[in-house]
């Protein structure tokens, strides 16, 4: 029982993205290395660097413009573009003050609502999808493949089609306008892709590991927690980032199910209302957008390692 943890740790130390096939000959490895060095050479040419810099500039310019705009006085935003800041610099934090504290309820409350919505809406689908993916990958039962295809096929159902039937169901259950309806909806919409990604990743784990654990007397629960879970961390992290960004930026689901009541509405709903009944306060949007961008940006910056690695591991490989 206590001897099983060893092998998974050995595997976990290896980067999932670069697992070389065990049986590969040295000649093949040389070929790989040669191609890798050619690619390195090609990619590091000055032209490629130049193009990369230009693309980076092009992609960042609108964001910078938004940031600059958010600090400009109202009358400047309305009359001239942000680039005139270079010839006529004037900055103010009034937009942020008005966006954050101008309403009857400060923007922080909505930020907390968003966090309360986002965390369970990330944790619940991942928990369920992990169990389901394990079942599909390692438990042999009748109709497994059919069921798996059926679940993934649900991915093509557009969520707009489900809004009214789902809302009707929530009204019947009496949970509309609460966090519950939002969590459940996000869970439903996330599950097909989550199960698919995690299943593909689990399938890639060598069966010998699982068999070895089984020979040592481990049951499903032990195999799941001791053998597979440590290996799955990159895949879980990558899907968690996906789901986090999606839920954080979601307006439609929250607007429909949580309603706009101040005690449940998330940041996105509030920012959509910032412009006022007749759209006159649109200059506040840049400041509001930046407040809502900060958290996902931090999450992405700190977890981007997993983002790329997990994506490759989960869906492309094999």
């Amino acid at each position, binding site marked *: 029982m206590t001897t099983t943890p060893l092998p998974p740790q050995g595997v976990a130390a290896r980067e999932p993205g670069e697992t070389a096939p065990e049986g590969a000959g040295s000649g093949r490895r040389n070929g790989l290395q040669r191609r890798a060095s050619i690619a390195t050479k090609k990619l590091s040419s000055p032209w490629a660097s130049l193009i990369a810099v230009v693309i980076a500039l092009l992609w960042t310019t609108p964001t910078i413009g938004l940031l600059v705009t958010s600090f400009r006085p*109202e*009358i400047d935003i*309305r*009359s001239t573009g942000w680039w005139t800041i270079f010839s006529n610099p004037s900055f103010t934090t009034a937009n942020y003050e008005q966006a954050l504290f*101008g*309403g*009857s309820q400060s923007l922080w409350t909505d930020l907390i609502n968003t966090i309360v919505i986002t965390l*369970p809406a990330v944790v*619940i689908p991942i*928990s*369920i999808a992990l*169990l389901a993916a394990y*079942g599909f990958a390692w*438990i042999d039962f009748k109709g497994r493949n059919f069921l798996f295809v059926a679940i993934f096929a649900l991915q093509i159902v557009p969520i707009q089609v489900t*809004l*009214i039937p789902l*809302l*009707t169901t*929530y*009204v*019947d259950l009496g949970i*509309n306008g*609460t*966090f*519950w309806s939002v969590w459940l909806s996000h869970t439903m919409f996330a599950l097909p892709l989550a199960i698919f990604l995690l299943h593909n990743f689990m399938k890639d784990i060598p069966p010998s590991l699982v068999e070895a654990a089984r020979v040592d007397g481990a*049951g*499903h*629960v032990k195999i799941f927690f001791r053998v597979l879970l440590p290996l799955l961390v990159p895949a879980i992290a990558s899907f968690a980032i996906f789901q986090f960004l999606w839920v954080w930026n979601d307006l439609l689901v929250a*607007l*429909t199910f949580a*309603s*706009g*009541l101040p005690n449940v509405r998330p940041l996105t*709903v509030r920012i*959509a*209302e910032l*412009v*006022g*009944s*007749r*759209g*006159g306060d*649109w200059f506040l949007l840049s400041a509001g957008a930046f407040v809502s961008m900060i958290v996902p940006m931090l999450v992405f910056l700190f977890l981007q390692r997993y983002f790329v690695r997990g994506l490759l591991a989960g869906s492309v490989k094999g």
Partner: protein
Amino acid sequence: MRINSRRRSAAVAGGLGLVLALTACMPGDDEGTEGGGGGEAAGSEECEPFEQYGDLGGTTVSVYTSIVEPESVDQEESYDLFEQCTGATIQYEGSREFEAQLLVRIQAGNAPDIAYIPQPGLLQTIVRDNPDAMVPAPDETEANVDEFFAPSWKEYGTVDGEFYAAPLGANMKSFVWYSPQMFADAGYEIPETWDDMIALSDQIVADGGKPWCAGIESGDATGWPATDFVEDVVLRSAGEDVYDQWVSHEIPFNDPQIVEALDEVAGILKNPDYVNAGFGDVTTIATTPWTDGGFPILEGECWMHRAANFYQNQWPEGTEVAEDGDVFAFYLPSMTEGTQPVLGGGEFVAAFDDRPEVQAFQTYLSSDHWANEKAKMTEAGGWVSANSGLDVENLATDFDKLSSTILASPDAVIRFDASDLMPGAVGAGTFWTEMVNFFALDKSSQEVADAIEASWPAS
């Protein structure tokens, strides 16, 4: 066998654990305890008018509207007295997605108790498509409306002979904004007739200025400010009877009288000598945000900007709206002597439940009592009502008093915004987009009218 049974029990245990973890997060039923005991706390004198509604302690009325902050703050404050005296709680919710979300909620069986519907056309659609959703207004509300509102307002809240919705606030759209200072310095008089206004425009051109500025960009509703201009002109050039026929499609959209009105609009807004002061040529009308359309007046570049009374709240902070201030507005003159056509708009209070507290609140909103209460709460101005029981002195600004006086004037011939009455495909569709083409692509009046007529849904 052993492995099998273990496997099953493990799966069951895992599933159970998850369910337990999920149910642990269920919210408790600890809401709705406040607001119950407040019934007797408020002063008895203030509460006297509320005795007719009885004790509504512990009840809640949900209100769903398109009015969001900052305007919603005054709205909510105007319910305070009702809440204190009757003990009912008003749960207010405003959304800019109101029109779409209201239909979703009705279809899902999740309709609010009360909704403020800004378009009579939408009211009719809801009543006809969801016959059981909306409940007719109670008799007390109808009595209030008969007493305080003009018959045409009641008509807009009536569908197929049944009275559903009482008017709430009102907009008054027939205004031209100008700078009193500029007019005084140049020695111009405020025009009393349409011809005076055109003569004044020519005078300004002769003096080397550009008289008019305009902007009709408004996100996915781009074009609506121009539809208001057209409606105002139809009401003046063809008269209110033709206007009614036009709205109900008894005459086609490309009727010669409508095309003539479009030509009249083109004579001002598509005249390169007249527009677009402070922005550029005629095509900039289509791309200038409507919220900024009048700003050149503040810089002394533009003389006149036709916009509704709610444009008052669009001026940048620090702009003084007064007859001797930075900007003010005059009534868009009529074309014939002795008539005073007014283009208006407003919200209507529709109820989706007939519980006593809902009916009480509905009745309260239609009363002169609420109208005055709301006027007092709107300290910054920007709100008027067509309620004749409203004391003009309670309104915050001179401009609101002017709007209210025109709306309540016995000579006023008030017609509701046509694009809010026409079928959605036209009123919130081709009428908008064709007005954009009118300016951006320089389509002729006839072409625009023909295109809108072709899009009118067959019924």
